[in-house]
């Protein structure tokens, strides 16, 4: 009963929405212009937490899910915000690309919890190879 009351109560607490219509000039996809299929994969599997614009699911209206999402997005953007890609130096870009490759290879990203509710964000083996190959090539092209 107590839990139920608490559950109803927290529904009235609002969270900050991570949404923006502006795509900055520094955006990863804008600057690097990857092939369409890779662009789509990154948008679906990464951009919800690693950019200034999240496509929120319907259950984001329910607390405490909204809090969990807000927390993940905050952490994700602090680690890497694809919208701000080109503001990184070449040194840092290379390190980020290295981390992207490792995270995807080890199935650390996308997060397990995100994959559970976002079936479309799961990268198949061939999709993983595609993204990893692209990131590696991008890394080697940087001076």
């Amino acid at each position, binding site marked *: 009963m107590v839990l139920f009351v608490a559950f109803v109560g*927290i529904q009235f607490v609002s969270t900050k929405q991570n949404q923006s219509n502006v795509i900055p000039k520094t955006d990863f996809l804008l600057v690097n212009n990857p092939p369409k299929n890779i662009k789509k994969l990154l948008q679906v599997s990464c951009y919800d937490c690693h950019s200034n614009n999240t496509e929120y699911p319907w259950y984001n209206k329910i607390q405490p899910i909204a809090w969990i999402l807000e927390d993940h997005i905050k952490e994700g953007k602090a680690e890497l915000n694809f919208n701000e890609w080109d503001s990184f*130096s070449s040194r*840092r870009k290379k390190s980020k690309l*290295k981390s992207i490759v490792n995270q995807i290879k080890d199935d650390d990203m996308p997060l397990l919890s995100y994959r559970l509710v976002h079936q479309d964000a799961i990268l198949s083996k061939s999709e993983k190879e595609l993204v990893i190959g692209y990131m590696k090539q991008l890394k080697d092209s940087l001076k």
Partner: protein
Amino acid sequence: MKHLRTVTILLAVAFVGLTVISCKDSKKEDSNDAMHSNLSTNEAEMNHDETMDSNTMNASNDMMDSSTQNSSAKQVVLDYMALKDALVETNKDEAAQAGKKLESTLNSFNVSSYTSEQQKELKDIIADAKEHAEHIGKSEMDHQREHFKILSKDIMDMVAITGTETTLYQQFCPMYDKGSAWLSMEKEVNNPYYGSKMLHCGTVQKEIN
């Protein structure tokens, strides 16, 4: 029906999540506080340095070139060497410890004694190195070594700016990841990328004084 199942799962996850979050938040506040106090000491130090700088500006500027090494830079090199030694011994836990130590040293790196251009470059190097040190603090051996390779490049670039009071040897292993370099304080090659598997594999590329 499918919807109903998802909702039930989500609710279950939600309650667990709530408990986790409430614990986590209080922790976060603690570390924030710690960071604040850290910041303020840093600021105090910096102000102090500024006043000192204006007094001793002329004298220290002439000497800045390579002979005087900033104490943070010196500590970074020492922490890096402890990390390198742990990797030579293939000791994951010690490497993780050394990574964390290096991360905290980098966090308090005081760049105020350098020119604004050097500061910009140093800040970039520090931000990058910090990330690698952090990862080394919580990764398995193979990942620790991968990060160590990029970290080594950072430290070499840092030393190029800060100079070094002790002689450093830039060493090179042609086998690891298409060829990888690192820094050492001894001329004798002890390979941090392979440890005992290929302990003395590598060459001295450069002596840095």
